[in-house]
């Protein structure tokens, strides 16, 4: 072959490079064919001999070897197989042979078939180890727990040595054999046939679908060096639930752990439409046939009656209930103790609620390991977390108990243990039947009942002794326990005639717990003689003849019983006088004594006996050097101090009384040891703002001496009333005020002064508010001299009202105020000056004016009062004289046949009449009958009597020539423009007359004005002249007047005067009955007030 290869290869060296690539490919193809040819030749040679020797084993002891028979060898051909394994072994066999397992290493195997001989090298490494297919002995199911139980035999006896075996088990479900699970299970071969069990719990109830199980194995023999392979799968075995035709839901009433998953199925022949978990819809998982399942993930704790799972079919409904809960918690706070050493009570808390009740509730079992006894907790529904308890009967001669409390429910169990020496865990019952008996006035016996077998231990009991108004006292007593449960002790150191309340509790030694307190037992101890005499004091009566003995009742602790009476006696050097027995509650006695020295003795008596006597001397040592002092207390008491006096050999006595009470002054007294120099006097009777008198007595052998007299307050308050004050004297610039003292009861403190306020003001206007607010208009005087009772206020204004306020104050505050209004007197001098000065000034001014006027009289006359020609001299006019005399009759200004020389009308009048202030109705134009018809109230009557006629002599020469005169009307339109109609509507004024009309229309002459126009004016419905000139009074004596009394026409002005210039406005004269004030005359400048 090599030659051929070389021959083929050489020519290729002679071609160029491009050709070389093509030639190379060709050479490879040829080479391949050549190889195939050679292999075929070899194979053909092999096929003529036994070949392909293979060996497998299933038990490691026997190898099962096989080979391919040579071509032409018929069935049943015989082979001679020889194995060189130290011993030359030859076997005459057919095609296959089982040979014992060979030792590790190569072994030559010769197979002779006729003339052909095949030789093989056989090694263990070339052998495959394939275990036999396992066989399931049994497959069973526990439907209640959805558990499959598998049983098979490992056939370990066929294996020569121990080996590990891996079993692989597969679970298939439903008829289409869906693989649900493949799991492994490890065992060991031990040389013997062993039946193995394996269980598996399905997540789906086994009733829901058929379950299949298969198994295979893999033997891992560490010494076998060949190929190890899995066995074949066993035959499948199945479990199915033989259902009747009824629809059922699985599992039924299952208890599962909260948070776990569960599959619920409905085995039915009907089509399931809907599945509900509680109120939640669930997707259906279809199983074989119409069977369906639902899967619940992470289920939450169920309510008491469980979680309902419901499947709905066409016309029915099927369901089950699942109880999701927790396994029992470890019992907590397990405690075992005994009340009476007869029975042990163990208590515990269940811990976390299990959410399971009824038959699924946790059951408890308490077991004691030494005795092996157990007690079971009888199920009773108790509120969650309430303490459970179990009673365990104590065993004789056993003190130490090892308890184990086991809690169990369908989901699991837990336990708690406790080792206890029960004699150290005694919690006695509450003592009962407490009784008290007398021993004497200071001791009693106390007995009670305490159930229990305490004979072997000691008891520690506590007695609480309560006394009225006193802190309670606890006494501990240790006593030996007794069998009969009755206990008795003596309680001493009590007070006589005192109500005590006893109660008892007990524990044991060593201490564990106190029992509850027993019921209280009240008891009154018996009486004893009073321990001391009463505290006494004496006072001489006001007439000095009788001595009054006072004593205080003994306190309860001192009386030792009910005080029935007192015995008072007085003794002197010569005699002893005993008074009759004084029954309680009288606490004073009066004895008539002379001025000798006596010792007074007072003894208190109760039913048992008399107290030691209290003695006091009757004599009072005078003290000339006595001053009254002041003191203020601290609210609830008052501190009194004094200097130490060695002469005082017995107690000091301070007595006090209300200063406003009548004699004798004795509210209470207090005795202070002779070595004291101060004391605080306290009394419930002290009241703030009340003045008390305190008297300090020193005690000598002979008697008592008053050392100090003090008035004081425990607390000062502000006065309740204001000082009563009056005004003693008033002048133009001062007021003298006097006030009275405030009574002590209303002063309520030591008077420190007065505050006097005053300000200008009248009653009802000055309220003197904010006296302390620093108002600048209020003057304040602080009177700190309390002896001052008057005050003069100076620098006041005359004839002025003043508001006076007075208030008193103490250290306790300001008292109320009292006020008064006073008016100072008028200042006469000032008044006189005030009158004289203006008068003098007026006189001087008058004189000076008169002189000046006199000296300038000509000029004044010319200027202000020129001569006026007498109109009566005018023949043109004849006035009735009575015109201006107030007659209400019609006055007519009749025009005498006077021919004026000239009439000059100064008024410039347009064709449209403008507003005029006055209107003088021409007697020609005015018709009397019309005037009479006019209602007076419809026409303002204006009296117009021009008192002064200002003349303007336009042409003096012409005047003097007489004959002709000029009447000048001055248009006052320029002065009085009000009520004027707009000039744009002149025609309306004339014709319509709806607007304002001049108050007076002054026709200059009857000929000048058109009479028709006059008629039109009268007919107008608008404004009428306010003044009816017919009713005007010409009150001015200077006015020209008509002489015709029958005429109702009043003339105005004097058209026949010479040149005259006059304001034609009627005077506003209120006194004129016909005047409405609508007129005005020049005289107003002089007659009326400036304001008018």
């Amino acid at each position, binding site marked *: 072959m090599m030659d051929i290869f070389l021959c083929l290869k050489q020519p290729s060296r002679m071609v160029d490079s491009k050709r070389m690539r093509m030639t190379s490919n060709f050479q490879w193809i040829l080479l391949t064919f050549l190889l195939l040819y050679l292999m075929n030749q070899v194979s053909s040679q092999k096929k003529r001999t036994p070949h392909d020797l293979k060996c497998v084993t299933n038990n490691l002891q026997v190898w099962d070897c096989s080979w391919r028979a040579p071509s032409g060898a018929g069935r049943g051909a015989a082979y001679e197989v020889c194995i060189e394994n130290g011993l030359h072994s030859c076997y005459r066999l057919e095609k296959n042979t089982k040979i014992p397992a060979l030792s590790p290493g190569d072994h030559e195997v010769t197979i002779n078939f006729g003339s052909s001989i095949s030789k093989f090298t056989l090694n263990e490494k070339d052998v495959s180890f394939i275990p036999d297919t396992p066989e399931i002995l049994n497959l069973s199911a526990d439907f209640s727990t959805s558990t499959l139980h598998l049983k098979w035999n490992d056939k370990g006896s066929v294996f020569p040595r121990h080996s590990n075996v891996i079993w692989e088990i597969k679970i298939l479900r439903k008829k289409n054999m869906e693989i649900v699970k493949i799991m492994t299970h490890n065992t060991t071969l031990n040389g013997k046939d062993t039946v193995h069990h394996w269980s598996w719990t399905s997540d789906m109830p086994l009733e829901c679908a058929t379950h299949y199980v298969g198994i295979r194995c893999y033997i891992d023999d560490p010494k076998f060096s060949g190929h190890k392979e899995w066995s074949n799968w066993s035959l499948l075995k199945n479990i199915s639930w033989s259902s009747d035709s009824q629809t059922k839901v699985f599992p039924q009433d299952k208890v599962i752990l909260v948070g776990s998953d569960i599959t619920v199925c409905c085995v039915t022949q009907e089509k399931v439409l809907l599945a509900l978990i509680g*109120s939640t819809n669930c997707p259906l998982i279809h199983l074989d046939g119409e069977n369906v399942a639902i899967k619940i993930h992470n289920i939450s704790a169920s309510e008491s009656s469980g979680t*309902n799972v419901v499947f709905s079919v066409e016309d029915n*409904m099927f369901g089950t209930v699942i109880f999701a809960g927790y396994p029992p918690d470890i019992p907590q706070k397990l405690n075992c103790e005994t009340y009476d050493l007869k029975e042990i009570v163990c208590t515990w808390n269940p811990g976390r609620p299990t959410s399971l*009740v009824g038959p699924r509730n946790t059951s408890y079992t308490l077991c004691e390991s030494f005795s092996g006894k157990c007690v079971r907790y009888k199920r009773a529904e108790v509120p969650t977390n309430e303490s459970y308890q179990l009673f365990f009967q104590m065993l004789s001669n056993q003190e130490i108990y090892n308890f184990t409390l086991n809690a169990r429910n369908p989901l699991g169990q837990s336990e708690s243990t406790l080792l206890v020496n029960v004699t150290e865990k005694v919690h006695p019952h509450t003592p009962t039947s407490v009784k008290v008996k007398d021993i004497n006035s200071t001791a009693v016996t106390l007995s009670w009942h305490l159930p229990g077998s305490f004979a072997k231990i000691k008891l520690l009991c506590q007695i609480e002794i309560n006394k009225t108004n006193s802190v309670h006292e606890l006494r501990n007593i240790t006593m030996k326990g007794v069998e009969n449960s009755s206990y008795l002790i003596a309680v001493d150191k009590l007070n006589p005639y005192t109500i005590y309340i006893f109660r008892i509790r007990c524990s044991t030694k060593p201490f564990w717990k106190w029992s509850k307190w027993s019921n209280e037992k009240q008891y009154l101890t018996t009486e004893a003689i009073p321990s001391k005499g009463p505290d006494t004091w004496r006072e001489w009566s006001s007439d000095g003849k009788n001595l009054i003995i006072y004593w205080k009742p003994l306190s309860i602790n001192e009386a030792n019983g009910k005080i029935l009476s007192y015995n008072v006696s007085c003794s002197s050097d010569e005699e002893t006088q005993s008074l009759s027995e004084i029954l309680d509650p009288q606490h004073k006695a009066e004895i008539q004594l002379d001025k000798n020295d006596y010792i007074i003795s007072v003894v208190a008596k109760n039913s048992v006996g008399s107290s030691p006597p209290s003695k006091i001397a009757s004599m009072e040592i005078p003290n000339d050097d006595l001053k009254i002092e002041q003191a203020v207390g601290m609210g609830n008491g008052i501190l009194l101090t004094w200097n130490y006096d060695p002469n005082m050999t017995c107690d000091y006595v301070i007595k006090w009384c209300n200063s406003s009470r009548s004699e004798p002054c004795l509210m209470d007294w207090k005795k202070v040891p002779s070595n004291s120099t101060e004391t605080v006097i306290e009394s419930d009777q002290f009241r703030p703002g009340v003045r008390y008198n305190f008297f300090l007595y020193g005690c000598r052998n002979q008697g008592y001496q008053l050392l100090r007299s003090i008035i004081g307050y425990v607390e000062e308050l502000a006065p309740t009333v204001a000082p009563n004050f009056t005004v003693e004297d008033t002048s133009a610039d001062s007021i003298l005020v006097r006030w009275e003292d405030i009574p002590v009861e209303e002063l309520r403190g030591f008077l420190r002064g007065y505050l006097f306020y005053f300000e200008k003001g009248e009653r009802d206007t000055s309220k003197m508010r904010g006296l302390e607010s620093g108002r600048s208009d209020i003057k304040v005087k602080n009177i700190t001299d309390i002896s001052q009772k008057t005050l003069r206020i100076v620098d006041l204004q005359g004839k002025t009202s003043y508001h006076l306020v007075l208030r008193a104050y103490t250290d306790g505050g300001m008292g109320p105020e009292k006020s008064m209004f006073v008016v100072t007197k008028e200042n006469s001098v000032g008044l006189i000056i005030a009158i004289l000065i203006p008068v003098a000034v007026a006189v001087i001014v008058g004189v000076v004016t008169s002189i000046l006027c006199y000296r300038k009289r000509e000029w004044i006359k010319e200027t202000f009062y020129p001569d006026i020609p007498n109109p009566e001299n005018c023949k043109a006019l004849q006035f009735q004289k009575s015109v201006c005399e107030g007659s209400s009759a019609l006055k007519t200004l009749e025009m005498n046949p006077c021919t004026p020389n000239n009439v000059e009308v100064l008024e410039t009048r347009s064709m449209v009449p403008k507003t005029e202030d006055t209107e003088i109705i021409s007697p020609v134009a005015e018709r009397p009958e019309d005037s009479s018809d006019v209602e007076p109230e419809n026409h303002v009557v204006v009296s117009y009597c021009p008192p002064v006629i200002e003349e303007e002599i336009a042409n003096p020469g012409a005047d003097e020539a007489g004959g002709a005169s000029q009447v000048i009307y001055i248009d006052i339109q320029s002065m009085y423009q009000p009520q004027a109609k707009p000039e744009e509507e002149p025609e309306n004024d004339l014709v319509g007359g709806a607007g304002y009309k001049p108050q007076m229309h002054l026709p200059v002459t009857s000929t000048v004005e058109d009479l028709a126009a006059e008629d039109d004016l009268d007919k107008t419905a608008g404004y009428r002249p306010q003044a009816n000139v017919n009713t005007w009074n010409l009150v001015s004596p200077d006015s020209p007047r008509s002489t015709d009394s029958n005429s109702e026409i009043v003339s105005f002005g004097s058209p026949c005067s010479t040149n005259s210039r006059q304001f034609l406005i009627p005077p506003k004269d209120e006194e004129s009955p016909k005047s409405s004030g609508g007129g005005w005359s020049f005289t107003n400048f002089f007659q009326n007030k400036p304001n008018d």
Partner: protein
Amino acid sequence: MSRREGSLEDPQADSSVSPLLHLEAKIQQTHSLARLLTKYAEQLLQEYVQHQGDPFGLPGFSPPRPPVAGLSAPAPGHAGLPVPERLRLDAAALAVLPPLLDVVRRRQAELNPRAARLLRRLEDSARQARALGAAVEAVLGALGAETGGPRPEPAAAAAAIAAAATGGVFPAKVLGLRVCSLYLEWVSRTEADLGQLAPGGPA
């Protein structure tokens, strides 16, 4: 007639009152009792449903109506029967109901041990059903109708339902609901039947 629980006052006690008035009073009292118990039965049903969990309390939930041994719902033709016959059927049903209610109460005591009000209502209902049945029988006696007749044995019915109730919790809940419903139906039926006899009624 011996006095029994729930029986009405003996009308013979006051001979001065006419027997007719006594009968009227008896019917009126029994009718009032039935009306009261109808209200209680409604409350019992409501309380029962509340404690069974969803979907029992959901609107539209219509659980199966399993047959109750010895007791059926009032027949549709019940109203067409003569009044005494109706009352006889009422009395028979009311006699069967107390042991059934007792069985329901016992099962509920396991399921809802803390539902004291439900348990008390079930206990009271059994007693009240017994009292109403006795009162109806008294009315029948006063009417002169026969009170006897074939009727199911209460104890046997109770045993049957007890066996059914132990099958599973869900069927027990459904059965309890059925018993409570039957109780309401029969009490209200009795009220209606007595209303036919009561003064002012259609009869």
